[in-house]
């Protein structure tokens, strides 16, 4: 099997598993809603990886835009109109625009300084969501809204009560975003991003306006993760300030690392592992948090390339 065929086979396998999920997940002790969570969190992790794995930029505060996406969707459903597509748009815009603005401030920094600032900014937003309880519901989160059935004109899809229908809706959204992401990564823009990751100084001396490029990549990743956040609000019918906390950011980064940062599908694998492990652990022990922490430590020390990264290295051209 050539590398190409192997890649296609892998891709086909992934999609087959995803499409058939409502049928096989109950067989392994899971449930459809878990699939929703995996897809949405995978999307979030892929958005982070867009920046982390493909541009080499250490953004650790991305959950802020995820959370904003969730709140944006919630606000739209609660105060604007009972329309699912609108809520997705609002969430995406809120996350993306916030990211674009913050990006302007910090794009000249790099490395740990950049990470620190993104974390701090994420915390500002977390704090606001927490404190401004009249608007956001504070600690309890934003409630009182739910995803609305899709009115396609010729038919109505009840994604509110029909779990399976909703899963496929989430899958379609996932596919859409993944397609866009993949498209961008394969374009000249994407290649320039990779150049920055490989050797930023060289990229600059090839004539690339590095800061501008990073800002655009950052903004795009915030739009992507805003979309994921909006979806998440639809999954839960609820928006949570904890979604903005830097520990959530850490989870996304961990998913990307666990699955393999250099690989496009790595975060999906990482999300699957993470969600399953967390789900299982929290039902088994109260101290699941320390196990998650332990997982972080072990992966970083012994498995830094992640699962797919490990395989990819061996198959390098």
């Amino acid at each position, binding site marked *: 099997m050539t590398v190409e065929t192997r890649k296609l086979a892998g891709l086909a396998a992934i999609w087959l598993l995803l499409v058939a999920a409502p049928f096989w997940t109950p067989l392994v002790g899971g449930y459809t809603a878990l699939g929703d969570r995996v897809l949405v969190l995978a999307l979030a992790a892929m958005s982070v990886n867009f920046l982390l794995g493909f541009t080499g930029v*250490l953004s650790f505060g991305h959950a802020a835009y995820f959370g904003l996406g969730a709140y944006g969707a919630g606000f739209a459903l609660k105060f604007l109109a009972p329309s699912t597509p609108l809520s997705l748009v609002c969430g995406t815009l809120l996350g993306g625009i916030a990211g674009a603005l913050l990006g302007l401030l910090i794009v000249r920094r790099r490395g740990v300084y950049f990470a620190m600032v993104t974390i701090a900014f994420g915390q500002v937003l977390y704090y606001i969501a927490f404190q401004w309880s009249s608007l956001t519901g504070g600690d309890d989160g934003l409630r009182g809204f739910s995803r609305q059935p899709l009115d396609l004109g010729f038919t109505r899809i009840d994604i509110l009560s029909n779990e399976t229908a909703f899963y496929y809706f989430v899958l379609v959204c996932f596919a859409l975003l993944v397609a866009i992401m993949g498209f961008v990564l394969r374009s000249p823009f994407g290649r320039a991003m990779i150049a920055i990751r490989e050797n930023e100084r060289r990229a600059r001396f090839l004539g690339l306006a590095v800061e501008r490029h990073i800002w655009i990549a950052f903004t795009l990743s915030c739009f992507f993760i805003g979309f994921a956040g909006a979806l998440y609000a639809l999954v839960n019918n609820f928006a949570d300030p904890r979604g903005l906390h830097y520990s959530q950011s*850490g989870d996304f980064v961990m998913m990307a690392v666990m699955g393999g940062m250099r690989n496009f599908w790595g975060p999906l694998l990482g999300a699957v592992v993470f969600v399953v492990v967390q789900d299982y652990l929290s039902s088994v022990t109260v*101290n699941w948090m*320390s196990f998650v*922490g*332990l997982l*972080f430590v072990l992966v*970083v020390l012994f498995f830094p390339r992640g699962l797919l990264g490990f395989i990819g290295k061996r198959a390098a051209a």
Partner: protein
Amino acid sequence: MTQLLLFNVTNGLIIGAFYVLMALGLSLILNLSNVINFAHGGFLVIGGYIAYAVTPYVGFWGALLIAPPLTAVIGFFVERILIRPLYGRDPLYSLLLTFGLAFIIEDGTRFIWGAQGKPVTVPAMLARPLSMQFFFITGYRLFMVAAAIVVVAALFAILRYTRLGLRIRAGTLDLETVAALGVNVQALRSLNFAAGVFLAGLSGVLAAGQLGLEPTMGTGLLMPSFVAIIVGGVGSLTGTLIGGLLIGVASGLTAVFAPAASEAVIYVLMALILLLRPRGLFGEEGMLT
């Protein structure tokens, strides 16, 4: 009004002194090893709980003497075993590691001592307010500030006048050259880390006396430390010092006019600095990584 202002500014300075202790520890580690120690809050908690554990035997003063060094020792081993392998790699990994460590510490303390807050008794002589006029300045708070001043002064003195301090300062600027000059960089980093953790542990003991003790207190104090470093300028300990005091005072002052925003104001300060002087007050130009 002046009374209120004075109250809040003094309060702010006291809080600031505390932030300074935390932030300096974080800054020390960041400057030399390029590691963001997410577990710093966790070490604060460890310090507090160790103090809690030994107080029945040695009293508050004993705890104050024992807990920080003990925490530093723990920090030393953490650095040697967990963080050292990561130095050559992308800073992402040390970030994730300390992140995971923070989880482990928080949950660990919860496991050992329970999730409920623990009361920490402070010597009676410190608990009394100094006077009715300045009722808000309890002996304890004054003591906290005094302790902070002493420790910070000692830190700066060590950095300025000892060989170890010189090596740390040189290492912050150019670790490679320092290594080439024959200094044991591994040991230097470990010691430096332990020193930073010492400060965290000390903060923990002091905080315990003021705020009580519970497993999640570390994370709440971590963020202001970040902001202090960003405001003061990455790479400059003096900057961190000023930054910490500044945000403390800003917080105190805001409490006069808009109490609900007193925590938010430190982030506003940070945003201002990033807009107007991105390198921070004392930061160096070109601090890209």
